[in-house]
């Protein structure tokens, strides 16, 4: 109703999505905590198997790998860019690890390959976006096909197996009782990224770039370099995730991690990061990852097929984002 008379807000002015319910008592994170607690409660009533330490530990595998990528993706999206190629990077890194295994490589070499390939792919994206000034959404649609295409060329319809036993540690081992290595890595990364984004000048620059790249440039922020670093980080995290996923599955197919890019972005957006850039928090992303893990795991215990779970994730995404807006409309009467 107000669309005709009011011009849309220019991009750099923080969107109303950025500070949801700010006029009310809740912060976005509080909203997510409430949702998480609700889903947790529903789960524990719905299935007798839910509140078991071992099954709760299984739950963590539902989000740790994608969550690791989501941290770096959050920074990237806050800076106003996006990377759709993360799942393809996982596939390419996994394929090259598989090739190395066929050549008889040992576990440390495999991990190194995963990390280096991830970093390399991220740097390639970063160079294309920053050096040539191209929109990242299109560049990474291209590299997404390119990276996964290379995996398809190498693998065809084959699968690589025969990973060394020591390699299974990354995706399958428990560090302490029911605490998996993946979970430890996830939590460590959460702390590191929280510190990076919220406690360093680098993090402040990321926000500044997302809010207004031109102003950031004029105030001495090296926008191109920071964006390049962020693409490298996203690639690196995809490489690490590739090590974990490959290790957990013990095999590589070219279709590995298919569709992960959208799940990762869903996590980031659900975590309260503005898709327009400039706003967001790591705590939100951690909570969103946890919520997505809870939803898929809880529905899994109830024998709900994976494709139906995705309905709930999609609904959750839209409802959570729409909630503050509807709330404000109702209260403001506008």
């Amino acid at each position, binding site marked *: 109703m107000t*669309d*005709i008379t*009011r*011009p*849309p807000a*220019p*991009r*750099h002015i923080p969107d*109303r*999505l950025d500070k949801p319910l700010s006029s009310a008592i809740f912060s976005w994170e509080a909203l997510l905590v409430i949702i998480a607690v609700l889903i947790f409660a529903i789960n524990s009533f719905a299935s007798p198997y839910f509140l078991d330490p071992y099954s709760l530990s299984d739950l963590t595998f539902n989000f740790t790998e994608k969550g690791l990528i989501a941290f770096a993706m959050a920074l990237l999206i806050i800076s106003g860019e996006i990377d*759709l190629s993360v799942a393809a990077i996982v596939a390419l890194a996994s394929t090259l690890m598989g090739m190395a295994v066929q050549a008889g490589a040992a576990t440390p070499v495999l991990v190194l390959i995963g990390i280096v390939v991830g970093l390399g792919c991220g740097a390639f994206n970063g160079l*294309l976006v920053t050096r*040539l*000034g*191209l*929109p990242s*959404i*299109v*560049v990474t*649609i*291209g*590299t*997404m*096909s*390119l990276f*996964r*295409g*290379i995996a*398809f*060329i190498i*693998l*065809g*319809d084959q699968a690589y197996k025969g990973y060394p036993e020591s390699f299974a540690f990354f995706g399958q081992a428990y560090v302490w009782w029911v605490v998996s290595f993946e979970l430890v890595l996830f939590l460590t990364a959460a702390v590191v990224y929280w510190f990076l984004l919220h406690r360093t000048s680098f993090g402040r620059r990321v926000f500044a770039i997302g809010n*207004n*790249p*031109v*102003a950031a440039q004029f105030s001495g922020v090296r926008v191109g370099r920071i964006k390049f670093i962020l693409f490298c980080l996203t690639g690196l995290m995809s490489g690490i995730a590739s090590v974990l996923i490959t290790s957990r599955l013990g095999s590589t197919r*070219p279709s590995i991690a*298919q*569709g992960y890019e*959208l799940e990762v*972005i*869903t996590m980031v*957006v659900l975590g309260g990061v503005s*898709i*327009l850039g400039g706003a967001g928090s790591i705590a939100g992303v951690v909570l969103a990852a946890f919520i997505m893990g809870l939803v898929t795991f809880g529905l899994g215990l109830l024998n709900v*097929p994976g*494709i*139906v779970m*995705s*309905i709930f*994730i*999609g*609904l959750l*995404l*839209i409802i959570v*984002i*729409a909630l503050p*807006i*509807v709330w404000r409309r109702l209260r403001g009467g506008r």
Partner: protein
Amino acid sequence: MKAILKYREIWLLAAIAVLIGLISTRFPAFANPGNLRQVFNDTSILMILALGQMVVILTRSIDLSMASNLCFTGMVVAMLNAAHPAIPIPLLIVIALAVGLVLGAINGLLVWRLNIPSIVVTLGTLTIYRGATFVLSGGAWVNADKMSPDFIGFQRAAFLGVPVLSWIAILVIALFFVLMTRTALGRSIYAIGVNPTASVYTGIDVGRTKFIVFCISGMIGGLSGYLWISRYVIASVEVANGYELNIIAACVIGGISIAGGIGSVGGAVLGALFLGIISNALPVINISPFWQMAISGSAIILAVVLNARGERQQGRIILRKIEAV
């Protein structure tokens, strides 16, 4: 001459001609009219989808849910056909358009009324619509033997020597051409993409136009649902999984700027044709189809690089930069 070279459609046409030329050096029969007609027919659905996506992208939005819409609508018409083979095909097409329209309108309403960015809305509905397909079908497939001969035969029937599917594509292209070049709605769509703020001051209802645009892409998704299912004669939850990115890729190769405001019907059609020729030619010239993704990926990157140069020359980027400040 220079004036002609400024049009990127000319470049694309040249690129396609070179591509066909290269392929014919390896396999001469590829370039004969009968085969090219076949390639056009094979690419029809992608062209139609790319046009629907184009109008969305022109308004600075994006519709990631198109392939899921296609999958859902396709399942609806396939199940309807399996249960009631007596329903005539034209009515089924109307139903497909209507179902697609509803799904598109949901996207449009969320974007318009709640002001949620389209990438978030359609990311959500992407999974919802595909999940809904599963709920609707219970995970079952609708196979060729359950579909009526009419259902499968309609788009294959030849009219003036050209399959109906190609005619539908030609009709859609013509409609979009009229829409984008001869109507106020088409002009508003471009205006919103170039400068949303200015459009508001010129009296364009940006939100409502975006809603209409999503309705259009929804209807296109629905139409393609029927076409896809009757062409590949199987309806399942997996239909066109991940295809949304192929559609966007066709638009990008066709020179439609993801930042909105720049692009043409001819570009979208040629972009889709370019991808279609690649996928048709690979098996013909004995390259494994596994190369397809890598080749189209490289084509996209190349196209983006060229796009960015073209846009810079037009000076629109500078305008946008000033506006961003």
